[in-house]
């Protein structure tokens, strides 16, 4: 059984979670060029490696960030957005 650690609720089966897509910094809409905005909206970097991803713990409604190596499926750390200092690992 694959496990993932919710920063609030602890280690749980991955079946309790929903993948929310890659986490990417949004460019400032008032300053970004059309090309930068289009890249943010439409382009995805699918190269394998360590990615920041949104994950959702469904029973508690908790959104958090997981840093995951998409080549090995190893989760390096999970934390609430903006609270990486309280990070935890699986």
């Amino acid at each position, binding site marked *: *059984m694959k496990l993932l650690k919710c920063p*609030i*609720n602890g280690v*749980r*089966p991955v*079946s*309790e979670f929903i993948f929310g897509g890659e986490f990417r910094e949004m460019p400032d809409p008032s300053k970004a060029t059309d090309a930068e905005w289009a890249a943010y909206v439409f382009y995805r970097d699918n190269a394998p490696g360590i990615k920041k991803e949104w994950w959702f*713990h*469904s*029973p*508690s*409604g908790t959104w958090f960030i997981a840093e995951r190596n998409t080549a090995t499926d190893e989760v390096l750390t999970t934390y609430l957005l903006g609270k990486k200092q309280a990070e935890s690992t699986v």
Partner: protein
Amino acid sequence: MIASTKKQASTQADKNLLAIADVSHFKRFGVKGAKAAEWLSGQGIALPESNNSWLETSSATLVMRLGSSEFMIESQAAENLPTLSNSDQFATPGVYKVPRADAAFIISGQQALNLLSELCTLDLVGESLSENKLLMTQIAGISAILLKQSINGKDAYRIWCDGTYGHYLWETLLEIAMELGGGAFEFDAQAF
């Protein structure tokens, strides 16, 4: 909500082995928002200090802290609950009513943990439900809130799930309960 409770209660069922009760009819109330804790305290309601924990007040009201600013309060008697009308929400910034239409069940008896072990991936034997902790996890594949409470000196497990899953979860609980020698009983706070 579960009309079949009485019908399906088996005369062979041993309450001491395993008893499940549908308590969806209990009154419950949700409140959330930056000032929810302050508002509840102002209503004279004691609050659990940490997330994912609960306490029982002197009026047998359960107060559950589901997040830093979200609470669910449940009681058998409506007069024990605070009221927040829709108009109050606009008069009290930072306090929002959360309608709760949960299905709620109580499980007790010697086989209660065996039943839950068939439905929940977490090990509930350890410390996970100690010290007034509550779990938000999946039971029988659906999201649920779970806590362990002492009722008349006996361990009882309380489950809440979205009301639309109530019939499914009840049927699932009942099927396993009957396999384990238990069955459905009406909840009686004095004798459950």
